């Protein structure tokens, strides 16, 4: 589903003044993780423009760490944590902004060509979007991380929850989402 992850880059100790080879390492991390960060953002934000901005901001943050010579032990964890925090911030702001405004007024993202199958597909996507948007922010973030195949430990680190509560929180979030989907059908 995703471009292979660069496991060997998962520990990064690079200083800004180091050689170009390590610059290229950063590029490899960027290329390797961009699809994951972007997909995560897209799933939560539902908008390719915002997802792209999110990915850019997340990698800029990682780059600043790298430039300032601060070691990042767990690159994947760092990226997901940054992405989850940013998504939460943005969605919270958006919620405030959209209070009382119907989500359906927002133009559909990436409209497909008007074939009937595409319309059915779009309908399904719209329902999925409605179901996920109805969940509390934390549940959305947890489900986003869960969908990306992160372990409970990684989810706990990225979402800032205790790892002993991940099971409970996920079970609740999954149940809520399933209920919303059933309601929408």
């Amino acid at each position, binding site marked *: 589903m995703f*471009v292979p992850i660069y496991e060997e880059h998962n520990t990064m100790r690079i200083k800004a003044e180091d050689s*170009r080879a390590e*610059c*290229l390492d*950063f*590029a490899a991390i*960027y*290329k390797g993780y*961009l*699809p994951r960060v*972007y*997909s995560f953002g*897209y*799933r939560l934000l*539902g908008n*390719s423009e915002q*997802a*792209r*901005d999110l*990915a*850019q901001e997340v*990698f*800029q943050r990682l*780059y600043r760490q790298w430039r300032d010579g601060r070691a990042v032990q767990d690159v994947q964890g760092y990226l997901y944590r940054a992405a989850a925090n940013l998504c939460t911030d943005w969605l919270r702001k958006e919620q405030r902004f959209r209070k009382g405004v119907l989500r359906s007024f927002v133009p559909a993202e*990436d409209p497909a060509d008007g074939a009937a199958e595409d319309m059915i597909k779009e309908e*399904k*996507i719209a329902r*999925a*979007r409605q*179901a*996920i948007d109805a969940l509390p922010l934390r549940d959305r973030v947890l*489900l*986003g991380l*869960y*969908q990306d195949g992160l*372990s*409970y430990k990684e989810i706990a680190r990225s979402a800032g929850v205790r790892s002993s*509560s991940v*099971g*409970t929180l*996920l*079970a609740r*979030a*999954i*149940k809520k*989402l*399933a209920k919303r*989907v059933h309601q929408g059908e």
Partner: protein
Amino acid sequence: MRCPRRKTLQAFLDGELPEKTAKELEDHLAECRTCQDAAARMRSDKDLARETLRRLDPAGIPMPVLGHDGTPATRARPVHVRRPWAAAFLPSPAAALLMAVLFLAGLFLGISLRGGASAVRGTEGTTSPVAFYFAGGNAVRAVSLDLDLNGYRPLEQPRVILIAEERK
């Protein structure tokens, strides 16, 4: 084993339980009808949630935009910032400064040549690397600033060096 809590069942479905606990839970599930039902419901919810989330996957992934040094390039965003007029010179402040110096030097030379008397013929002194050409009266003159300013007050007694002169 007693009936597990929901979080344990969820962890079991997600393969997050230690092997020993998972085995015990499996044995329990084989016997307990209530837990079997609960697990089946949770599994179906999980599949539905995964399917729903999968539908929200992006259609494509953007290409990474890398700067020349391999770092992520900053995407240009339409930001409306009031720029001061001086910002027009920002792309090359050095060029702007050079232009200003040349302009002032030209002005200075022009004024001093009008006075006429202070131009020194030949290459004595230290000339600036930039020569100025003036066409005026019956001659074309190439002059340069005298940079050898020791013991000499340029403002009161401006001195330029005449490099070449061609009379008509």
